[in-house]
C-alpha cells in the first residue's frame, strides 16, 4: 500500500464526500491516519457528515409526475415548429451561400474577360500606332527607284554623298 501525502489525503476527503470509498482507498486512508493521528477527529467529522447527507430521504415525487410533464409538453410542442423553422432557415442560408458563391465566380470570370479584352485592344492599338510611325518615317525618307538599285556595280562606285538627282542618274545608266 503506497504512502499517501497531504494533498492525496485532501483528494480522498473530496471523493468521500461524493461516494463511499473503495476498500483500497479506505486502506490508504487508515494508513495515513495512523501516521497522522491529529487528522483523526477531522476525518471522523467528515465521515459523519457524509453519512448524514447520504441518509437524507429522497424528495417526494408524485407517481404521475412523468405523465403530467408529458401532457404539458404535448400541449406546447414549440420545439418542433422551431425545429422546422430552424431547418428552413438553414436551407435558406445554404441556398443564399451557394448563390453568393456562384455570383462571385461569375463576377471573377467577367473581370478576367474584360482584362483580356483590354489587353487585346491595347496590343491592336500599339501595332496600329507602330505602323503609323513607320509610315511617317517612310514618307520623310523616300527610297530610290528599284532600277537604280539593280545596277550594283554602279552603286558601289557612287560617292558616299547624297545623290541630288536619282532619276537623272537612272536615265544616264540606260
Amino acid at each position, binding site marked *: 500500500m503506497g504512502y499517501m501525502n497531504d494533498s492525496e489525503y485532501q483528494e480522498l476527503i*473530496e471523493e468521500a*464526500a*461524493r*461516494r463511499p470509498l473503495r476498500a483500497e482507498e479506505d486502506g490508504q486512508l487508515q494508513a495515513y491516519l495512523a501516521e497522522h493521528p491529529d487528522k483523526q477527529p477531522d476525518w471522523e*467529522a*467528515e465521515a*459523519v*457528515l457524509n*453519512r*448524514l*447527507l*447520504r*441518509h*437524507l*430521504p*429522497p*424528495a*417526494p*415525487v*408524485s407517481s404521475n*409526475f*412523468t405523465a*403530467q*410533464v*408529458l401532457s*404539458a*409538453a*404535448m400541449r*406546447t410542442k*414549440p*420545439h*418542433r415548429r*422551431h*425545429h422546422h423553422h*430552424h431547418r428552413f432557415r438553414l436551407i435558406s442560408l445554404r441556398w443564399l451561400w451557394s448563390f453568393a458563391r456562384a455570383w462571385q465566380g461569375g463576377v471573377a470570370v467577367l473581370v478576367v474577360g474584360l482584362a483580356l479584352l483590354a489587353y487585346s485592344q491595347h496590343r491592336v492599338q500599339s501595332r496600329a500606332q507602330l505602323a503609323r510611325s513607320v509610315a511617317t518615317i517612310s514618307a520623310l525618307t523616300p527610297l530610290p527607284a528599284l532600277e537604280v538599285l539593280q545596277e550594283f556595280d554602279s552603286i558601289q562606285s557612287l560617292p558616299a554623298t547624297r545623290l541630288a538627282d536619282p532619276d537623272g542618274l537612272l536615265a544616264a545608266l540606260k
Partner: protein
Amino acid sequence: MLRVKHGDTAAFEELVDKYKQPVMNLLYRTLPDATEAEDLAQSVFLQVYKSAHRYRASAKFSTWLFTITRNLCLNEMRRRRRHPADSLDAPLVEHGEEAPPQVREPATPAPDVALVQGELRQKVELAISELPENQRLAILLCREEDVSYESIADVLGCSLSATKSLIHRARETLKQKLKPYLHTGVWKDKPS
C-alpha cells in the same frame, strides 16, 4: 437527448423518469414547499423539451439539466423576494388540502429511534436550507454521484477551485451547526 432533439417522445419520457428524482432532490431543499418544488421541477423538464433543439452533444446532459434547474430556482427565489406576500413561512394550504410534510418519517423503525432520526434529519435539512444559495446548490449537487466536480463548477458558473472552496465552506458550516448531534452519537442507527 439527441433522440428528444429529433422529436422522440418516448426518449423524453425516459429522461424525465431518470432525472425527476435528482431534480426534485435539488428543488425540494431549496423551496420550502413540496408542491411548489414539484411544479418547478415540471417547469424544468418543460424547458428541457422546449430547448431541445439547442442542445449540443458536446455538453453533458446532466450539466445542462442542472443548469436549467438552478436558473429556474434562482428566478423563483428572486420572484419571491420581490413579492414577500408569496412567502411560504406559513404552511401552504390549497383547496382545503393539507400541505405535505417536509420531512418524511421512516416507515419501519421503532418509534423512539424514528423520533430521534426524524429530529436529526430535520436539523440536517434546516442546516442545509440556511446555507447561502450557491453553497446549498453545491452541497446538494455533490450528493449526485454521476455529477463530477467539473460539472458542478459548470452548473454554478464558477471555476473548479472556487467550487471546491464553496463545498468546503458549506461542509464546515454544516459540521459546526450539527456538532452537538455529531458528538452525542444520535446519528447512529441504535439509540444512545
